[in-house]
């Protein structure tokens, strides 16, 4: 412990030196910006700035790139809350209740809760990263294909079990998402599936055009289709801050989101979007009044926003402790280290203590910077809602198209977004939830790959899924959940989902 404190002191010495502080600040500002812009996510931001870091020393470069990464998680909530457009993929869940809050005039509160939740999650998870990195990284490595498959199966069942409204509709949407996810090159055999000769479709359908189309475009279309423009609830200045009750209601979701996000972030290959989905589902399940979810429940903002932030720190665990990339963003950051002649790996902590501890300390500092940066911005961003629709919506459309194009410089992506926008509009009119589609698109390639890799490992024997302890335990959990889901059929009691439906009915016929 004393050693850790000594190391941390060394780290703060590095992190608080003016040049490092400056680059942390630049990273945080850029991160907030790419997070705010719809479509452009942290990966695009980091990739664009990577060449600019080649002239810096390794510590400054990595501190700046990390700032972009976790900064984007702060910024991502902004457009989700104000316009129902996910600023980056992990903010999809925030769209649902954040936007509902904004319509009730609580946009300021939602933004502030998101910023504070992100701050708490960011800071607490750095402590976890600092203390637990080596043992956790070793554990994360034990996740091979069978464990992934079990984890993803469990995740899908958890989400189906906890979705509101019709379970059948939610499952149908997840299945549609999984089908979209099948498009593209078959990683195991090299066959192109459903590509119709379009080379770009060989990579499959990206999550960004799908998320922006289903949420952003569909919202614009739906609003334009209303006979009278929706009344804008103009935020009053003194209502910018969350009320005492809203704070109380978000405290536990922030805590739970932090823990969940960190744990999910560690597992290599999992995405932040999964952390925020799981957090949302858990909060709805634990809520005293689950019927409020989807209508502006503050817990539906606090949980997922905290989860996606602490997933960022979780993702650094395998990267720093083992030199193993846990996703595309840590992979780019590892490349940045290699460019500076720092070989990332298990020896990084001992060979480059200044880099490692400076990096850790800079994350404490960066999170404070982001909180200071984002809280005043709440007032600025909320004023965007005062812009009249005829000006606001076309501008949003332009930003969506630019953002989606920027990710891969691909016109095909824009078409995908437009098709998804039309689909999202139709599905909204038919009362389908579109969030499970996004999840399906993300999970399909991972789920399929994990299943087939496992079978390649075992030479086709399915026993591999139960013979390995971690995957066996996860699958047992999934089985238990299926039984729980079937219970109401047997005992004829109303479960929370049925109560939810009743509550909804009561609201329609007061």
């Amino acid at each position, binding site marked *: 412990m004393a050693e850790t404190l000594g190391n941390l002191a060394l780290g703060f010495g590095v992190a608080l030196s003016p040049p490092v502080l400056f680059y942390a600040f630049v990273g945080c500002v850029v991160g907030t910006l790419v997070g705010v812009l719809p479509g452009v996510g942290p990966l695009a931001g980091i990739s664009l700035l990577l060449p600019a870091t080649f002239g810096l020393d390794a510590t400054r470069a990595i501190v700046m790139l990390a700032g972009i990464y976790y900064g984007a998680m702060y910024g991502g909530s902004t457009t989700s809350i104000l316009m129902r457009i996910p600023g980056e993929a992990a903010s999809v869940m925030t769209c649902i209740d954040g936007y509902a809050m904004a319509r009730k005039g609580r946009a300021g509160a939602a933004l502030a809760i998101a910023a504070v939740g992100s701050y708490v999650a960011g800071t607490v998870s750095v402590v976890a990263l600092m203390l637990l990195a080596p043992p956790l990284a070793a554990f994360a490595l034990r996740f091979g294909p069978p464990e992934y498959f079990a984890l993803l199966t469990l995740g899908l069942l958890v989400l189906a079990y906890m979705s509101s409204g019709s379970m059948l509709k939610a499952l149908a949407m997840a299945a549609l998402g999984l089908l979209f996810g099948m498009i593209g090159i078959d990683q195991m055999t090299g066959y192109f599936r459903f590509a119709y000769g379009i080379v770009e479709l060989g990579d499959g359908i990206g999550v960004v055009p799908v998320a922006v189309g289903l949420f952003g475009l569909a919202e614009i279309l739906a609003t334009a289709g209303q006979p009278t423009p929706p009344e804008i609830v103009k935020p009053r200045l003194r209502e910018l801050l969350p009320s005492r009750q809203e704070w109380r209601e978000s405290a536990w979701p922030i805590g739970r989101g932090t823990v969940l996000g960190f744990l999910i972030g560690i597992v290599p290959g999992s995405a932040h979007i999964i952390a925020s989905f799981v957090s949302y589902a858990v909060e709805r399940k634990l809520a005293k009044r689950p019927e409020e979810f989807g209508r502006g429940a503050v817990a539906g903002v606090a949980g997922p926003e905290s989860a996606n932030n602490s997933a960022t720190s979780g993702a650094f665990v395998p990267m720093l402790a083992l030199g193993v990339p846990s996703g595309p963003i840590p992979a780019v950051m590892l490349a940045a280290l290699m*460019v500076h002649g720092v070989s990332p790996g298990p020896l990084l902590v001992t060979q480059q203590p200044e880099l490692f501890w400076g990096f850790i300390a800079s994350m404490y500092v960066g999170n404070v910077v982001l909180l200071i940066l984002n809280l005043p911005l709440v007032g600025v961003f909320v004023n965007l809602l005062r812009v009249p629709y005829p000006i606001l919506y076309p501008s949003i459309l332009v930003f969506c198209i630019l953002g989606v194009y920027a990710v891969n410089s691909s016109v095909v992506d824009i078409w995908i977004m437009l098709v998804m926008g039309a689909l999202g509009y139709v599905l909204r009119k038919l009362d389908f939830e579109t969030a499970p589609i996004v999840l399906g698109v993300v999970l399909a390639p991972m789920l399929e790959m994990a299943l087939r890799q496992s079978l390649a490992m075992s030479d*086709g024997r399915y026993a591999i899924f139960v013979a390995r302890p971690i995957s066996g335990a996860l699958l047992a959990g999934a089985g238990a959940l299926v039984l729980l889901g079937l219970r109401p059929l047997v005992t004829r009691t109303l479960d929370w989902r049925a109560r939810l439906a009743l509550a909804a009915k009561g609201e329609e016929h007061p």
Partner: protein
Amino acid sequence: MMLARVCALVPCLLLAAAAAAQEPYPTRPIALVVPFPPGGVADLTARPVAAALEKVLKAPVGVVNKQGAAGAVGMQSVATSRPDGYTLLLALSSISIIPEADKLFGRPPAFTVDQFAPIALISADPTILVVPADKPWKTAKEFIEDAQKRPGQIAFSSSGVYGTLHMAMELLSHAAGIKLRHVPYAGAGPALTAILGGHVDALASGPAVVLPHIKSGKLRPLGGWGDKRVAALPDVPTFAELGYRGAEFYIWAGVFAPTGTPEPVLAKLRDAARAAVEEPAFKAAMDKLETPIVFKQGEEFRRFFEADARRLGEGVRRVGKVETQ
């Protein structure tokens, strides 16, 4: 139809020829297309190449990442771009694999190798065979003998089906007469994670990424695919030394222009590339990446490229279409 196409081409060619004759090349910015995302081997090689070329050619050289379909999107875009020397390609070995795989599946090829004029080979990194340190094999010979006894039992991870790391293993399997079990991953990073987690038994990899894990004692190197031993691992023999012929494999990076680029422009680019690899800044950058500079140009590069393409083409055909159980 044909006539129309030729007629359409003529003014193009005339223009290009005229431009080459009149204008000193280059007069405007040059795009160096990297068909992979930023941060990968190709991108990390391209950036110092672009910076060094810029200095020599005295014109801005910008790196453009055009990723997609394992590089096919970017390669296709250069293959069909105007052959004026202002659009160049930095490609890896996979440039000769993609058209072969397309042929195998009866797809209209995204591009063919004759659509590119080789300018210069920049680097060539032989892959090395690593196994987890807790596995029994101490030498390549033990590994191969065990694999002969248990065909299809020893599993290796790769960057993807028909990917470079898959082809390296395939060439070795053929040379040594063994059959290994292939577990493809989406990229070299996840393939490395898999072997570190003990989920597979072997991996072919570029030396730079596995060196830290060899030093920390988690992985053991058994052999190399190059014609020479890897400088950082002088005790690790090459497969050629051990008598496995025809397994030679490199992950190389080279610069190409679209076919039809005027010869004076190509000559200028070749000279520029030669000067560029001599730049101290370029050498330092490649040194940090632990990637050896191997420079070849003109005929020499063409011969290397053609021999490599032939080996890889045979490899792809031998693997054939992958059918899973």
